[in-house]
């Protein structure tokens, strides 16, 4: 069964890819086996993250971008496109309405496009738990480009930067006094800006404000505090006077009319070329691998500890912490340092 699925994925069979995505979403051992088998076949696709506040028109923009990449243009052959569209899971019911696909009607009927809607399933940070693995499946399945459209909560969108090669931040004029990107602290993660709904009042103002903020930003290495975590925006490797740092271009778009899309496409392709030329692609892959490994270790360690912890013992510890009889760090150490039988996976 697993071999069949793997063979199907590598042959680009959509049913196999779709089934495999479900398996990785539900995170069983079969999923891990599949991911292990395809890992050496990944690394070819260009991963483009698309993030921005709700109502910014991300889905419509992705729809237009996909169409354009499918058509190709002078100098850029047509490419196949995978799209992962993420919507939030309701914290009350655990269910979700996944409403991004509906905005991508134009893409229906094209076998070179694969759209998968995903619920965040409680994950914070704008992505779903299974996003990175799903990206790998589409990559192994032969898609040249994989778009990841985030939840768009605005505040915790940095995870996309760890998963994607190129991050497009979508802004819209008039959604408030400040530019959302600045408010949320995600200005730093943008490789490309799209000011969508540019036919609305305030579009030029939004562009100007972004330009100004970019001018203030130093191109050297710097750190950003975000949700009390330090995010290192490292120096651009290989930067010299001859290879200037990448300055995120700002493109005005009207996604509902398909305006400004060509410029955005060029910017995305240019960024990819820049990453390859400067060796940054390799660096970003390492970053991604490191971040993913950390997440996996965290998840796995937690799972193992909880799997071998008696429910009553856990409840008792929690009570002790709440009653201030025990501090949480000591409790954690207690659980982690349980006798070695706990770790016999």
């Amino acid at each position, binding site marked *: 069964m697993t071999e069949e699925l793997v063979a199907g994925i590598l042959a680009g069979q*959509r*049913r196999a890819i*779709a*089934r495999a*995505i*479900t398996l990785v*979403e*539900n*995170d069983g051992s079969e999923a891990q086996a599949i991911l292990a088998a395809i890992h050496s076949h990944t690394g070819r696709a260009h991963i483009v993250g698309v993030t921005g506040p709700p109502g910014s028109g991300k889905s419509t923009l992705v729809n237009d971008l996909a169409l354009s990449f499918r058509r190709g243009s002078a100098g850029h052959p047509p490419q196949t496109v995978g799209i992962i569209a993420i919507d939030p*899971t*309701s914290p*009350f*019911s*655990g*269910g*979700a*309405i*996944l*409403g991004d*696909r*509906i905005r991508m*009607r134009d893409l*229906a*009927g094209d076998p070179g496009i*694969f*759209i*998968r*809607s995903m*619920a965040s*399933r*409680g994950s914070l940070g704008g992505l779903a*738990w*299974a996003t990175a693995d799903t990206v790998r499946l589409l990559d192994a399945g032969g898609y040249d480009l994989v778009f990841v459209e985030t939840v768009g909560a605005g505040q915790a969108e940095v995870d996309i930067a760890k998963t994607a090669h190129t991050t497009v931040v979508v802004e819209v004029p008039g959604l408030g006094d400040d530019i959302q990107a600045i408010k949320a602290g995600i200005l730093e993660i943008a490789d490309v800006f799209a000011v969508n709904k540019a036919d609305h009042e305030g579009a030029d103002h939004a562009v100007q404000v972004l330009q100004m903020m970019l001018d203030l930003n130093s191109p050297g290495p710097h750190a950003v505090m975000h949700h009390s975590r330090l995010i290192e925006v490292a120096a651009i490797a290989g930067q010299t006077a001859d290879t200037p740092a990448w300055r995120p271009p700002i493109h005005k778009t009207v996604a509902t009319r398909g305006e400004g899309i060509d410029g955005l496409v060029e910017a995305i392709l240019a960024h990819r070329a820049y990453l390859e030329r400067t060796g940054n692609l390799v660096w970003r892959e390492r970053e991604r691998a490191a971040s993913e490994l950390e997440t996996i270790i965290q*998840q796995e360690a937690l*799972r193992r500890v909880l799997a071998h912890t008696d429910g009553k013992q856990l409840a008792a510890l929690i009570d002790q912490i709440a009653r201030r009889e025990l501090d949480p760090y000591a409790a954690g150490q207690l659980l982690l340092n349980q006798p070695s039988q706990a770790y016999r996976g």
Partner: protein
Amino acid sequence: MPDKKIRVLIAKPGLDGHDRGAKVIARALRDAGMEVIYTGIRQTPEMIAEAALQEDVDVVGLSILSGAHLALFPRIVSLLRENGLDDVLVVAGGIIPDEDVPALNDMGIGGVFGPGTPTDEIVDFIRGQVL
């Protein structure tokens, strides 16, 4: 941590644009903990089958009030089979006369839920069939 969710595609085939019921069902299924992909109106059978394939849904729900169900459903069901989605539960709602239900059952529609069906009946039916 991830856990298994029932994934449902809600689609409106044909020209009928009366989407009140489809939207209410989508919300009800979400509130019952399912993940619902709502395709919107004016869906061709090809679009529905393609979406069901890519989204690997457990259930396809078809909402139609225009009376064109006997013309459209057979094509949808056969495309689902062609795509290898034999084990997908297909249910329907809207304005579908009782006398058409046996024919729909025969062609593979697992349940027909007419006007006035309580939403938990639909939720329970889906859970019973899928889980």
